[in-house]
């Protein structure tokens, strides 16, 4: 599946689930802060994506994708701030996060609020490529 098709499918899922306009569901719009998605909306978006692309993603997979294989203890310190290792991983899956800019400032539990429509499309693309072998 071409990345443009996936991006369209993700945008349509976001628009359909949240009732926002296509002009709002832009690639750099964050799902939770900008578009107001609640957890039930995330479920709806993920089910819509599954139906249109065949790629199954569960809500808990988002955290796994964002955090990679990094353990909780290595990703965030005891105060909940994302470590350098965590930031370097985040730059790969959420390129809008600059590791230098956010060092020592980014709370692990707030990372999801920076997750954009494009980040989700990239995740779906990665899963689709993996499934295709």
């Amino acid at each position, binding site marked *: 599946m071409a990345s443009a098709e996936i991006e369209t499918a993700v945008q349509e899922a976001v628009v359909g689930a949240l009732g926002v306009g296509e002009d709002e569901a832009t690639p750099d719009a964050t799902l939770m802060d900008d578009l107001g998605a609640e957890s039930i909306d995330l479920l709806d978006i993920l089910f819509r994506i599954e139906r249109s692309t065949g790629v199954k993603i569960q809500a808990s997979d988002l955290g796994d994708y964002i955090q990679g294989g990094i353990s909780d203890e290595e990703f965030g310190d005891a105060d909940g701030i994302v470590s350098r290792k965590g930031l370097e991983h985040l730059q790969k899956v959420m390129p809008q996060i600059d590791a230098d800019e956010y060092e020592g400032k980014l709370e692990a*539990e707030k990372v999801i609020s920076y997750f954009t429509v494009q980040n989700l499309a990239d995740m779906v693309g990665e899963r689709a490529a993996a499934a295709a072998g």
Partner: protein
Amino acid sequence: MPPPRQASLTVQVGVDIVGVERVARLVSAHPSAMEELFTPAEQAYCLRKRRRMEHLAGRFAGKEAVLKAIGTGMRRRMHWTEVEIVDGVAGRPRVELHGEVAEQARRRGVHGLDVSISHSDGLALAHAVALCDHGVPTGGGRAVSSH
């Protein structure tokens, strides 16, 4: 020999409200949402009720409220069915935790949980309370969650 641990009990609350129609639309459009969100016992309880969608929405709000009271939200490796709200004594809902949610609750020193659910005028509301002993080591570290 380590000194006796000083228990530090606190109460943490979590509240959630959800539109009954929102839940109804989700499970109608995506039938597999039923299995992803609700355990067989929860489904059986709700589906035998006349106002089944109100009860399903109440269960969903209850799960969200419990995750908020525990302080995690929906974290990686967690599943919605790991917060199970079963029919307790005299119809009072009772919370049972499983899998990763139970493990996170243990790490956060959660000793007891209670939840109350109500629905009216198309909305379902749940209020959960967690009793926590912060003398229990948490193991440190924070992870990504999607509340």
